[in-house]
């Protein structure tokens, strides 16, 4: 029942903004869905497999650049470009990750940071992707909503609405896919590696293989997100797609919402992204603008969650509260 309501809200969310002309909030919704999707991807390697990846944005960038190159040089349709981006990203991820799975815990995390740091000068100087001058994605003017959905092109006024629904579609696919993985054998193997790697290996689970699989799933999702972002921004610059925000936000969304829980990153994204946008909107160009107040609040929220509810907001006793609200006794003794 709750899911039906949530799906309805998500589908109808842009309607009031379309009618009042406040398209900006549709873009906020787009960013929330994009980060929620990336958060679900990060959750696979970070929450389920327990290996913290602090540099996932390299796959975001690989996805964006591959899609841009396919679209510009070979005229690929946006969705085919997305598939190509996902394929390239997964292959590169597998090649990069397998050797590094020898490293455990903190060492692995720092290796992922190292990869991100190596990617930055490559992105800024590689002639194939035009270095720091970026790639520009050509877009045809006009076109109906349906045409836009098929080609990810929404020039003009329909952009906020169109990309919101594109993001919703990709987010839904990611969510259903993640749910399937969570309940599958892979999901169990990931969690086994997280909880007790030596024990898992003792019963024959190849921890290196499943770490690679988990990271490749994340790479696929980040590549799809990168493609979507590339077509939204209409240009791919190394500074933008390798930005530290794409590393941190999905991870923070997962942590704040509930690390290892399917809906955790979704809740986290819904909480975190609007804070930043709200700050930008209310502080505008006043004396406190550009002073990073939104990030101060981010920091405070993260510290609060880490100290008070390290299992994320999803671990709060929602069911008990709902039961008490309805006037019935809660199902379990724990309040």
């Amino acid at each position, binding site marked *: 029942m709750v899911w039906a309501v949530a799906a309805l809200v998500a589908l109808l969310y842009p309607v009031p903004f379309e009618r009042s002309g406040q398209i900006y909030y549709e873009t906020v919704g787009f960013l929330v869905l994009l980060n929620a999707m990336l958060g679900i991807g990060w959750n696979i390697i970070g929450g389920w497999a327990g290996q913290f990846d602090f540099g996932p944005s390299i796959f975001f960038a690989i996805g964006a650049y591959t899609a841009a190159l396919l679209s510009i040089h070979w005229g690929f349709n946006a969705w085919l470009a997305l598939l190509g981006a996902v394929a390239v990203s997964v292959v590169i991820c597998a090649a990069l990750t397998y050797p590094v799975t*020898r490293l455990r815990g*903190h060492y692995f995390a*720092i290796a992922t940071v190292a990869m991100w740091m*190596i990617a930055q000068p490559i992105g800024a*100087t590689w002639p194939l992707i035009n270095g720091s001058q970026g790639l520009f994605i050509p877009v045809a003017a006009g076109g109906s909503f349906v045409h836009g959905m098929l080609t990810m092109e929404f020039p003009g006024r329909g952009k906020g609405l169109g990309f919101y629904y594109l993001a919703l579609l990709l987010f839904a696919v990611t969510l259903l896919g993640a749910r399937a993985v969570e309940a599958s054998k892979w999901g169990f193997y990931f969690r086994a590696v997280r909880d007790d790697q030596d024990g898992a290996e003792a019963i024959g689970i190849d921890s290196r293989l499943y770490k690679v699989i988990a990271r490749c799933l994340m790479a696929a999702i980040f590549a799809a997100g990168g493609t979507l972002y590339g077509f939204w921004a209409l240009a791919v610059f190394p500074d933008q797609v390798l930005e530290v925000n794409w590393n941190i936000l999905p991870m923070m969304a997962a942590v704040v919402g509930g*690390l290892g829980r399917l809906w955790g990153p979704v809740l986290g994204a819904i909480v975190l992204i609007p804070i930043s946008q709200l700050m930008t909107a209310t502080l505008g160009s006043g004396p406190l603008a550009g*002073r*990073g107040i939104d990030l101060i609040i981010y920091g405070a929220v993260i510290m609060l969650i*880490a100290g008070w509810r*390290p299992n994320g907001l999803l671990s709060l006793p929602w069911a008990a509260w709902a039961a008490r609200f309805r006037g019935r006794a809660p199902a379990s003794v724990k309040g």
Partner: protein
Amino acid sequence: MSRRALIFATVGLFFFIQNGVVALFTSDYRFIEGSLLTRLSGANLSLGGVRIGVPLLVGGLIALGLFFLLYLLIDRTDFGLAMQATAEDRDAAMLVGIRPQRMYAVAWGLGTALVAVAGVILANFFSVYPQAGLSFTVLAYAIVALGGFGSVLGTLLAALLVGVVQSVTAAYLPPAFKDAFVFGSYILIGLFRPQGLFGRF
């Protein structure tokens, strides 16, 4: 607080403090004037044909001295022994009467103090702005991982190695790749020695 929660708490603290500084002092670049090290600038020491700038030398010696003191604390005192015990097996340490919370608090405070000293020394050579710490932080992660978690000597050796790699690659490769080479070396060494040079964990 579990280890995982601690990591995220420190990330939150990073956002909080860095942007708190931005809010209080703006992102303007500032410079130090009139300190001891800046007054010494220009002075050079010649050692067998190699010219070394005195401010850098003094800064390096201060850091080296602190390394030595830290090594003495961790390796030669009972308190250091207690800290190592807590790092190795927290529950066993509790059983012999060590309070892990106190160890964590002191370790954290000590680490922060040392970083602060490094910041003061570096402020003489680099401009001061809120995001100044980020590049050094990421490099520090790689250095500690290279040296091995839990080893002071390892960190020193790794730091020297990284410094050498940085300088050599800056001379022969495009400067944008200076840090990338350091991280590449870390990954390469990590493949053959996953626990770093002298890592105990």
